[in-house]
Every structure is written in C-alpha cells, then in structure tokens.
C-alpha cells in the first residue's frame, strides 16, 4: 500500500473501492468492476429493506440463525451456495465475454472487455467461489439435511458445532464478497501458488482475502467432517447396521473421512503462506532456503481428496435417484459401497498428478500416474451400477433423471480426458492449456452441479412441503446440459490448438470461432441460472397445487420419506427400529406403512443459541482486520473467540423439551391427513394429484 498504516483504520482508506478506479479512468473494465460492487451494495440494501418491510428480522433470528437443527442449517448452507453460484456463473459469463473479445494484434496486444489484472481477479474469485463457497456448501448443506433423516437420527451429533461450521463457512464467503467493494482480490488463481503470491510480488490485500477466507472456512469444514463422521458412527437408529445404510450415507461417510484428513493440509499450506506474508518466514520464498514447490505439494495433498469430497455426495444422490425414479432396487449395493470407500482412500495417493511438470523424475510421475489411473476403476464400477439400476426399470423422466442422463453422457467424457491427463507424457503436452480447464469443468459441472441440483430437486419437498415445478426443472436441467456442452467442449479444442489457460489475451485469429461458441455457451449457462431461480419462484407461487403433505412424493424406500413434508423439527415421532436395508420400502410391502407408534414420549432437542452467530461475527472481524492490518481489532476479535467458548462452558444449558402430547397431536394429525389423501400412481406423479401419498402397491424398489 502506498500510504503508511493508520493505527485505527490500518490500510483502509477511500482509495480502495472500485468507484475510485472508475473516477480515475472510465473504461469497460472499471465499469464492470464498479457495476459488480453496485450489485453487491444494492443487493444488500434490498435484502435489508425486504427483511425490515416484511418484519422478518425476528423470525429470521429465532427460527433460522440461532437454530441448531441440522435440517435448517442444511437449508441455510444451500441458500448461501446458491447466492455464491449466481456470482460464480456471472463471473464465468464475464470471462467468456472477455475472451470472445480478447483477440489482440501484434501492434496492440491487449484487448477485450476487462483489464488483464481484472481478468486475473475474475478467474481467481471464480475458482475460489465455485470450489469453496458453492460446491462445498451445496454438498455440506445437502448432507446436513438428508443424513440424519436417512440414519433415523433427530440431529447431528454436535448441533452447536454444526452451527459454528456454518458460521465460519459464511465468514469465508462474506470475505470474498466484500472484496468486490473494499479492495481487490488476489490474482494468483484459486490455488494461489507462491512465490507469485508472496509478499514480494503480490503486496496488498488481495492474497490475504483469499488466505483468511480459506483458513476460516477450512476450520469450519474440518469440524463439519468430524460432525458427519461421529453422526454416522454413533447416531444411527437401532438396527441401522452399516450395511443397511442408504448409499448417500456411505458417500457422506467418505466425504467426512476426506474432510477430516485433507482439510488440515490446506490449513497448513495457507498458514505457511500467511506466515511468509505477514511475518517474513521463508517457507515458499525464492531466497533464504524457501521452497515454493513444497506449497504445490501440500496444497494438492488437500486438493486431490477435495475433488472427491466434491464428487462423492453427487454419487450418493445419483444412487438414490436412479433407484427411486426407476422403481427398482439399487443394483450392486455392496459394490457401490466398496467403490466409494476405495475412492476415498485412493484419493489420498494421487496428488502429484496436479504437478507432473514440476521437475521430479519420471519414476515419481509414473507412480502417481498409475495411482491416478487406478482410481478410475471404482468410478467406472459406479457408472455401470447406476445404468444397471435403470435397465428395464420404469424410468420417469423427471428433472433429476435429466441431470443423471446428462451426467452419464458428459461425466464419462470428463473422466476419459482425466485418464488421458493421468499419463505424464501427455500431461506434459497439454498441461496449463484450456484442455485442462475443459477437463475439470467436465467432471465438476456434470458431477457436482448436476448431482447437487438433482438432489435439491429430489429432497426439496421434504424441506418445504411442496414439489418443484417439473417442467421448469427439466428446462433448467436441459439448459445446464446444453450450456455446458457449448461452453466447455470448445475449450478442449482450443487447448489442443495451444491456448494457455488464464490468458487475458491472445493473437491467434484461429481461436475465434471456438471462442464465440464458448461465449454462446456462457449465455446458455446464464439462462440456466435464471431458469433455476425462476423454478424456485414459480414453484413457490404454485405451492398449494404442488403441496405434498403426505411426505412421500416419489414412492421412495429410505427412512426420510416416512415423515411429513415439511419434516417436523423432531423429524421422527419415535426413533425407528430399522429391520432392513430399505426399511421404508420393506414397511410398504408389509401393508399399512403409516401405522402410528404405540406410544409417544417427550423429545429432547438442543435449544437455540446465538453461539455460532457470535463466533462467526468475531471471526469475520478478525479476518477483515488481518486483511487490512487493523491490529487492535484483530487482537480483540481473536480473544473474543476463546472468550465466547469459555463463557458457554460455564453455562448450564438445558435442552428444549418437546412434550409427548404435542408430538402425539402433530403426528396424529399427519396420519389422519395421509389416510384422507388419495394415493397417486406413478403415471400421475407429476400432476397435482400427487399429494405425497404414493400407491404402495406400485412400490418395487
């Protein structure tokens, strides 16, 4: 920074907003920057105004922000992810537009919508947001919502820790968001490799925003992993043996294991980089014995398991929906379990394939190349299992099935390009080209995004009590599939033509046709995003016609479909005693599945607490103060965190007791309602006759 650090405001001053840049020099780049900041500011103002006008502050605080209920925490995670997804996709659109206008000449090399530095910020925030603040919250949110219900538990093992995790993830997202308005984000890509991101080449706040966003949300994710693992190990309903767990629970367990063991590596590499930047350490510098290659090594020890953290929950979702919407039992349950666990463990042995070209000898590259090819095997097993599940099933082409089909077609291409890249000698040719960009979007979009959107569509009724509009759901799905094909398949070609990734400009006119196709794809992606939000809105407006109070709109076979929609706070009136693998399905076979329990008892639920909110507030102040070198605030807010924990430790916290009578009343009302609703056949599932009570005789799962 050009001026001396102020003791009160640190490096903050009026020069840091994009509006200052706009005043200094009006061009397309600064207009885009100021426009984005304005969207953030106006969006915040609109949100605050809406909450105030509707008098929603109280309900928001009481029912959501202070709630330790895993279902609500899950929904909040997904809401956060969707907001960040909007920003991520818009950034992708801006980048595609930029590259479609970025053809320079030898005389005037720079061209395009945004300045090179601005472009670098765009791809850095896009990557960071999509991985850490879209994909992660989506899958964590979905697991939070679904896992306890599938296990027959009322909540996570540690509800308050869960709340803290959500708070910390939100802090990370908020830091990335606020970098739009105050200061700049880093330009080192989502991996932020030193020495470029060291203090010498990247002074200023950009890399620090990334560091603190990653460190803080990383702690949140570690705690989440611990929470998931303990929930699965200790909170299963009686009779729910491991081999009776639905596949989604298995993939959640794999995710938990990988989070527990992979997140520390990210914490270490980021903390080392922070020490280099803040305290003059020499972990990754060029001089004084630093070794920047150790950063790549440690970062990818996290980074590779992270890839499977992202993809495995989607595999869990696909296992559930392929079986439910085909009206068939899941094919090869055991092989899917083994495949998931193998992927979880093997994913820890392949990290070097992210830096084949760093200079190690061929023997090392071969070892990791082979491990990488091996991990393709269990993934292939899974694809065949899902196809076999759908084979000769009575498949209903619902939105999740459109996503699943798109996944089949596209993910296989992405996987195969991965196997190509796993060969070090080929990797040497195409690394750092847009071939790689095409490859990882080709696995992450069909894998994570389609999987999570399919999961949201599938479980939405359980959360809110009404289905999502099928027609709009399918339109969204088709737009996402088409958008992907047009945006990213051209990048394979461009990569093979020699276009480096992350280039703000290029001088080869042969690239242009492909750039235009990719730009058209980006328009489709933008349409898909709009269509996604429209689906939510239009379904909300038609919520009465789409309501499914019976709670089982798809004739499912797992426990979560046995409860009303939306599921009550306590989920199950009595903790179920599980008798079989597809317990709810087996109950359906044995007639009268909606039998009331013999007796009800008081239910203990964790009481609401602002603990997570307070810790998140303190962490945000700490991170923001560290980014801007406001030391007094950093010290105060840092001390506040152990202070809050110690304070809570002193308090005796009574659980919330829900009286048996209240549970009985609600449960009887539900069962009465189910008895009065007419059952819906598969053929009518999409119509308003679907009130959440399926025709049990049709169940074949």
């Amino acid at each position, binding site marked *: 920074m050009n001026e001396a650090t102020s003791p009160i405001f640190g490096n903050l001053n009026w020069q840091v907003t994009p509006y200052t840049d706009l005043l200094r020099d009006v061009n397309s780049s600064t207009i885009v920057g100021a426009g984005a900041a304005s969207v953030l500011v106006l969006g915040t103002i609109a949100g605050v105004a809406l909450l105030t006008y509707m008098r929603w502050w109280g309900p928001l605080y009481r029912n959501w922000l202070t709630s330790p209920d895993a279902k609500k925490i899950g929904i909040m995670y997904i809401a956060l992810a969707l907001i960040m997804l909007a920003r991520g996709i818009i950034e992708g659109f801006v980048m595609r537009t930029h590259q479609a206008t970025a053809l320079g000449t030898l005389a005037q090399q720079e061209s395009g919508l945004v300045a090179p530095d601005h472009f670098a910020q765009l791809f850095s925030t896009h990557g960071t947001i999509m991985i850490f603040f879209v994909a992660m919250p989506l899958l964590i949110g979905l697991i939070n919502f679904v896992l306890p219900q599938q296990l027959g538990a009322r909540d996570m*093992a*540690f509800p308050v820790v869960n709340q803290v995790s959500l708070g910390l993830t939100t802090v990370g997202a908020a830091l990335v968001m606020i970098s739009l308005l105050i200061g700049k984000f880093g330009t080192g890509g989502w991996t932020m490799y030193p020495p470029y991101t060291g203090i010498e080449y990247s002074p200023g706040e950009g890399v620090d925003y990334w560091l603190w966003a990653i460190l803080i949300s990383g702690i949140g994710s*570690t*705690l989440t*992993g*611990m*929470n998931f*693992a*303990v929930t699965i*190990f*200790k*909170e299963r309903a009686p009779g729910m043996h491991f081999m009776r767990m639905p596949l989604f629970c298995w993939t959640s367990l794999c995710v938990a294991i990988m989070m*527990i*063991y992979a*997140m*520390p*590596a990210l*914490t*270490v590499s980021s*903390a*080392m980089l922070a*020490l*280099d930047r803040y*305290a*003059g*350490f*020499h*972990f990754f*510098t060029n*001089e*004084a*014995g*630093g*070794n920047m290659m*150790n950063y790549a090594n*440690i970062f990818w*020890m996290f980074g590779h398991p992270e890839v499977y953290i992202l993809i495995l929950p989607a595999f869990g979702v696909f296992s559930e929906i392929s079986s439910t919407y085909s009206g068939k039992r899941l094919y090869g349950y055991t092989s899917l379990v083994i495949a998931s666990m193998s992927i979880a463990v093997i994913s820890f042995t392949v990290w070097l394939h992210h830096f084949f070209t760093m200079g190690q000898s061929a023997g090392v590259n071969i070892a990791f190349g082979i491990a990488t090819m091996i991990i393709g095997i269990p993934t292939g097993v899974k694809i065949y299992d899902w196809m076999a599940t759908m084979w000769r099933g009575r498949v209903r082409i619902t939105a999740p099935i459109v996503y699943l089909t798109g996944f089949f077609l596209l993910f296989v291409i992405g996987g195969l390009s991965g196997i190509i890249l796993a060969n070090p000698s080929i990797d040497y040719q195409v690394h750092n080209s847009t071939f790689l960009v095409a490859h990882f979007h080709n696995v992450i979009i069909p894998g994570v995004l389609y999987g999570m959107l399919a999961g949201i569509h599938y479980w939405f009724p359980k959360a809110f009590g009404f289905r999502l509009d099928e027609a709009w759901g399918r339109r969204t799905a088709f737009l996402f599939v088409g958008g992907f094909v047009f945006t990213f398949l051209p990048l394979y070609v461009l990569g093979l033509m020699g276009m480096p990734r992350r280039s703000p400009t290029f001088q080869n006119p042969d690239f242009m046709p492909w750039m235009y196709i990719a730009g058209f794809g980006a328009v489709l992606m933008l349409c898909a995003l709009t269509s996604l939000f429209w689906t939510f809105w239009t379904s909300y407006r038609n919520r009465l016609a789409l309501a499914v109070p019976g709670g089982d709109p798809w004739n499912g076979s797992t426990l979560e479909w046995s409860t009303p929609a939306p599921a009550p706070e306590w989920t199950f009136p009595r903790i179920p005693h599980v008798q079989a693998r597809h317990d709810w399905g087996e109950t359906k076979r044995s007639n009268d599945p909606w039998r009331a329990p013999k007796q009800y008892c008081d239910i203990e639920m964790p009481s609401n607490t602002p603990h997570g909110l307070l810790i998140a507030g303190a962490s945000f102040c700490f991170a923001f103060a560290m980014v801007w070198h406001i030391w007094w605030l950093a010290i105060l807010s840092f001390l506040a965190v*152990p202070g809050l924990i*110690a304070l809570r*430790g*002193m308090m*005796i916290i009574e659980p919330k007791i829900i009286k048996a009578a209240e549970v009985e009343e609600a449960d009887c009302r539900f069962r009465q309602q189910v008895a009065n609703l007419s059952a819906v056949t598969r053929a009518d599932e999409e119509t308003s006759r679907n009130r959440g009570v399926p025709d049990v005789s049709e169940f074949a799962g």
Partner: protein
Amino acid sequence: MSETNLYPGLNLGSGHGEAHDQAETTVFGFWVFVMSDLFIFGILFASYASYLDPIGMAGGPGPQTLFDIKSVAIQTAFLLVGGVAYGGVSIGTKYEHGRTVVIASLLLCAALGAGFLFFEVKDFITQAGKGGVPQASGWLSAYWALVGLHGVHVFSGILWISAMIAQIAVRGLDDVVKVRLSMLGVFWHFLDLIWVGIFSFVFLVPLA
C-alpha cells in the same frame, strides 16, 4: 450402547450412567478432531524434514549452534511428568475422590505445563539471540512453526485447564464437566505424544 469398559481409566466407568453414554459420542468426536490436528503436525514434520539440509538452512545457523540438548531434556521431563499427573485427574474423577483432588491434579498439570513453556520460551529467546530467528532460513521457519505450534497447544491446554478449574468450582463435577475432563485428558496426553516426535526427530536426529 453402553458396554462395560468404555474408555477404561481415561473415561468414566459404567457407574456414571448418562455421563458415560454421552462420553462415548463426545469423546469419540474429540478423538476425530485430534486426529485432524495430528495431520497438521504430521505435515509440518514432513516439511521440517524437507528443509533439513544445507539448502534449506541457507547459510544460517544450524542445529549444532542452536539446540541446547540439556534444556530439551528438562522440557521433556516437565511434559512427561505433566502427562502422568493427568492420571490424577482421570482417576480422581472416575473413582469420585472429590473436587479437591481433581482441582489439585489439574493445578499440578498446569504448573508442569507452564514449567515446560518457560524453558521452551527461554530457548527460543536464546536461539533468536544467536541469529536463529524464523526469518533467517527455510529450515528455521519450519522449526519455529512446528515447535511453536506445539507450544501454542500447550498454552491452550493450560487455558483449558484454567477454564475447567473454574467450571468445577462453579458447576461442580457434573456430567458435562466429567465429559470435558475426558476430552482435556485426550488433548493433554496427545501433546505429550507430539513432543515425543519433536524431541526425537526435531532435536535428536539432526544432532546425531
């Protein structure tokens, strides 16, 4: 769910009823968390090893100049005895010897931990005086980060002990406090384990 012999010794016997069942979930969760912490240390150990060569030391002071093996031995003794002293807390809680015994054992642990920290900080100051600051070389960065992180853990352990003493004084040895004492035990012994790694691989091996 409640088998006999869950956490024998460290935790509570089956006579403690609900605290015993709760301990199973909570302490298992804490074990998982500690394993995650172990990875942070493990990666730092691996980094330390990769910087332990003339290039990583970059002409700065090396182990022979900086390490005081006698002080390391004293620190080891403090931590080892401190770890065993936590046995007093575990046994005192499990066999209901009352608050005084538990608080006295906790104070002893905290005092021994503080003794360890005193000698460690003294070493750090001496080393910095000899030019062994973390800014001097990659190897010294790794050394300070690893050993410093362990020191920060011991310091947090002492803070946690103080918080537990306050809780015992105010709340008494209720179920929640007993479970937390079990977790603190896992943490405190875990620090001992890490120190075994540190004195062996950070101090003794480079001197060998």
